[in-house]
């Protein structure tokens, strides 16, 4: 005789764990009316908070951009008037912190060119002595 009792058939279980959304949906269902109201209010408050934070971040971003443009102008001015300089700046931006280092060292370049010239000269002298 065929057994039609469904209870004896093992229930198929999902291979995947329950998703976070499922957990939240289940949790929401078990909250009472007052709790559900508080949740809705908090979710709305969070939206406002995020909008405020976004505005603050935009402001930080605009300010950082202005400051960086000023830095470029200052570096250009120094480039024209000063031989060696080094500028270190940090900017608070919308996404984090930007650190900039601008360095110009003419004397270092001169030293390097001189060193290469001396090396070439010595090499030439040595070659001439040998032959």
């Amino acid at each position, binding site marked *: 005789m065929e057994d039609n009792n469904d209870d004896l058939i093992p229930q198929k279980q999902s291979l995947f764990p329950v998703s976070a959304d499922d957990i939240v949906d289940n949790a929401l269902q078990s909250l009472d009316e007052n709790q559900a109201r508080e949740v809705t209010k*908090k979710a709305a408050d969070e939206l406002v908070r*995020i909008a405020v*934070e976004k505005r603050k971040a935009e402001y930080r971003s605009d300010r950082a951009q202005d400051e960086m443009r000023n830095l470029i102008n200052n*570096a250009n001015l120094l480039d024209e008037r000063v031989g060696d300089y080094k500028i270190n700046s940090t900017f608070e931006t919308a*996404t984090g912190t*930007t650190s*900039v280092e*601008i360095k110009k060292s003419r004397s270092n370049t001169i030293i390097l060119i001189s060193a290469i010239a001396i090396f070439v000269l010595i090499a030439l002298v040595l070659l001439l002595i040998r032959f």
Partner: protein
Amino acid sequence: MTTLVGLALIAVLCFGYYFLRRSSPPKELKPKNAELMKVLLNLEDEPLNELFALYKQQFGPGAGRYARETYQKWRAGEVNPSRRTFSRFFMYLPKVMSFDLKCEVLRELRAQYLEKDKYELEVYTDDWKETLQPLVTEVIAKGESAQLPAAIQQKLSWLADDDVEVARAILVRSQKTESENNLAMLDKEFATINQLLDNTNGKGKVTHVLKLPLGTITLQIKRR
């Protein structure tokens, strides 16, 4: 002779201690009551005031006054809260807290105890998006699934309540939206950085620390 034996014994003990320390598994996080209190008292002014008002309402004006007077010392670690005070704040009050306050407490706990990673990446101004995208996606996804350490969940059993689960979901969603909003501004920031590197003719060096809720990515930005 006795001195030598003594010295040898000390050496063996030191070696044994060192060996045991090296071979033992890393210590599990066991948050102390005082440490958790510091986290709680790190709340913003508004929820902190709500917390003290609730404490006063539940345990009387005397206890309320004492908590108000002592909280700076608890926060600074100068005074450790008694077991009773800790239980009142962390075991009893969550049962009567508003959902809003519970969310704020959870936010502080997450800020303090969720593991934050640090990454370093070298990007060029013309390929930063493609290079950065997979890592950012990974860090944001990590934030969605991150759970407080088991030791804290065991100690604060109310964290398993249904409303806290909903609070967690709200905070995770907020964090994700905030990250996405900020990242949308990265385009503009990179345009300025590119301009800066362009104008400084190879003399400029730029590092950007990208802050995400569960990690920071330090970008060494270069121009081809």
